[in-house]
């Protein structure tokens, strides 16, 4: 009877408006947050080949710098400043060889003879993206392992070898070829056997083991201070947007691939955040809408509520209908939103799996939907009870004071 009476007080169009906006808001919020969780690993590069998240940084070379070479080197202050950046975890310098190096082979049936000037650099081994057992330098062996950029091999195979009618070489073949290295400086000359033991994708340089280079610089080096033109930087989080900003401001050049990606990630996150924010606004609007609507319903039916109170219905019983109605509407809608969100998730995961190496993450839609239900229902019930109490009870408060 009470419900029948109160049912007539509802304004259906407003309830539908609430239902519609809540459904849209809740669905978008559930989908975007789940989407974020799902693709987060792709964004934060946990699946990256480079475990260390390190990149090579150098200064941009301009016309002026090519005249004054000193400017391509990092000063001690600049290195210090880099070290102090919050997004940088670690910095390692490239060591240069400060002595003359020549590589040569004697012509044989297997390999054409060559003779070339060379340079060496070295980086700490942990930043190498090449795994090889031959990297250790043994001073007693007169052997130097070398790593070259993979690009060099491609350049040779697809460019040089093609045009000069030379044989193409696989990585394995190259690794078998031994050649000679002549190191000179400080009035000393020493010859070594050498071999290419690996190919780097990350470091564009000819690398030798760091302990060899340090030793050789002492032995053969010109003795001038080791200048740094390139540094290896290890980031805490490579998608940190501060990184790009800093390097642009300081005109440093950085191996772009990763940062292009992080730029993309930045905009993507921004877009996702924006959608999330819009959905939040929609939900807040729908909540305000239903609160205003309830307010209106209660005000419009103030007399009815007071009459009910007068014939003996307390505020809890009067509020019960509105509580049940709003709660069940909200629960129903969010359950629908959960279903739609799950459906949408299955759809996009199917697409992502086709495109990328993707392992499905835990599904938070249900739990976030449920939390939304709990929060909303708690808020609504509190509001309705208190509002109806306020309408009917000013008198009682006065009585209890007397």
């Amino acid at each position, binding site marked *: *009877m*009470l419900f*029948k*009476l109160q049912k*007539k007080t509802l304004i259906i169009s407003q309830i539908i408006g609430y239902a519609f906006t809540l459904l849209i808001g809740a669905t978008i919020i559930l989908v975007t947050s789940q989407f974020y969780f799902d693709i987060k690993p792709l964004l934060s590069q946990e699946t990256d080949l480079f475990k260390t998240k390190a990149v090579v940084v150098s200064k941009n070379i301009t016309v002026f710098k090519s005249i004054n070479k000193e400017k391509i080197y990092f000063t001690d202050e600049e290195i210090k400043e880099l070290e102090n950046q919050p997004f940088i975890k670690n910095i390692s310098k490239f060591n240069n060889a400060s002595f003359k190096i020549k590589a040569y082979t004697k012509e044989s049936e297997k390999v054409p003879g060559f003779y070339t000037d060379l340079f060496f650099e070295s980086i700490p081994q942990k930043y190498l993206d090449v795994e090889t057992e031959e990297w250790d330098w043994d001073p007693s062996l007169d052997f130097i392992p070398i790593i070259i950029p993979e690009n060099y091999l491609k350049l040779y195979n697809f460019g040089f070898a093609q045009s000069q009618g030379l044989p193409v070489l696989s990585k394995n073949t190259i690794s078998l070829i031994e050649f000679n290295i002549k190191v000179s400086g400080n009035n000393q000359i020493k010859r070594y056997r050498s071999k290419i033991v690996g190919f780097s994708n990350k470091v564009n340089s000819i690398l030798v083991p760091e302990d060899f280079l340090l030793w050789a610089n002492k032995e053969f080096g010109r003795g001038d201070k080791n200048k740094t033109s390139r540094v290896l930087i290890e980031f805490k989080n490579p998608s940190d947007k501060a990184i790009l900003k800093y390097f642009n401001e300081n005109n440093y050049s950085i191996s772009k691939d990763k940062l292009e990606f992080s730029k993309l990630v930045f905009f993507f996150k921004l877009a996702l955040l924006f959608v999330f924010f819009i959905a939040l606004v929609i939900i807040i609007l729908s909540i305000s809408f239903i609160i205003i609507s309830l307010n209106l319903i209660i005000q419009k039916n103030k007399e*009815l509520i007071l*009459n009910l109170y*007068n*014939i*003996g*219905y*307390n505020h809890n019983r009067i509020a019960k209908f509105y509580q049940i109605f709003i709660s069940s509407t909200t629960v129903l809608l969010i359950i629908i939103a959960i279903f739609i969100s799950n459906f949408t998730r299955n759809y996009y995961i199917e697409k992502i799996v086709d495109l990328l190496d993707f392992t499905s993450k835990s599904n938070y839609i249900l739990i976030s939907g449920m939390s939304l239900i709990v929060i909303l229902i708690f808020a609504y019930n509190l509001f309705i009870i208190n509002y109806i109490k306020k309408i009917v009870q000013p*008198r*009682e408060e*006065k*009585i209890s004071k*007397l």
Partner: protein
Amino acid sequence: MSDSEISESDIYLQESVLFEKGRKYLIRANSGHGKSSLLNIIYGSNANFDGNINYDGSSNHNTFSFRESKISYVFQDLKLFPDLTIFENIQLKNGLTNNKSVEEIDHLIDQVLLSHKRDNLVRNLSLGQKQRVAIIRALCQPFEFLLMDEPFSHLDEKNCGIISNIVSQELEKQNASLIMTSLGDTSYFDYDKILNL
């Protein structure tokens, strides 16, 4: 209120007025002298007064809970729900305590000559019909006091007779008191005490 009006009052001039169980009181006064206010104060829906109201000698009570089982009230403005039928209006009140069965309610409706309108919306009734509904609704709960605020103002002699009979029977059955207000003298009940305001 002016002094001359107060001087005639049987209630406001006394330190206290006692309403006892099982008796019938008539409160008589002209329009605007506070008959409804007095009943509202007793019912607990008006707190704008000085002094104390004691129930069973105690002023520390929750008047709201009295509305279910101790005090029933026929409001002057009836407080019916126009969008419900006669039966639904009564059942809405009866549902709080389930004091009367459907048959008993139907019998009451029949007694006040409204059985043909049982399922009509109250908004379509005349004032006199509404008054009858309000009165029988007030009987559908256990009570120790029945407050009636000018209950017969729109009823003819015949209906007044019927209603007073039903009310008297119910009062006797529940061993309850009647506190009724009226503009002048009425002879529908055997009042134990007539009070002027």
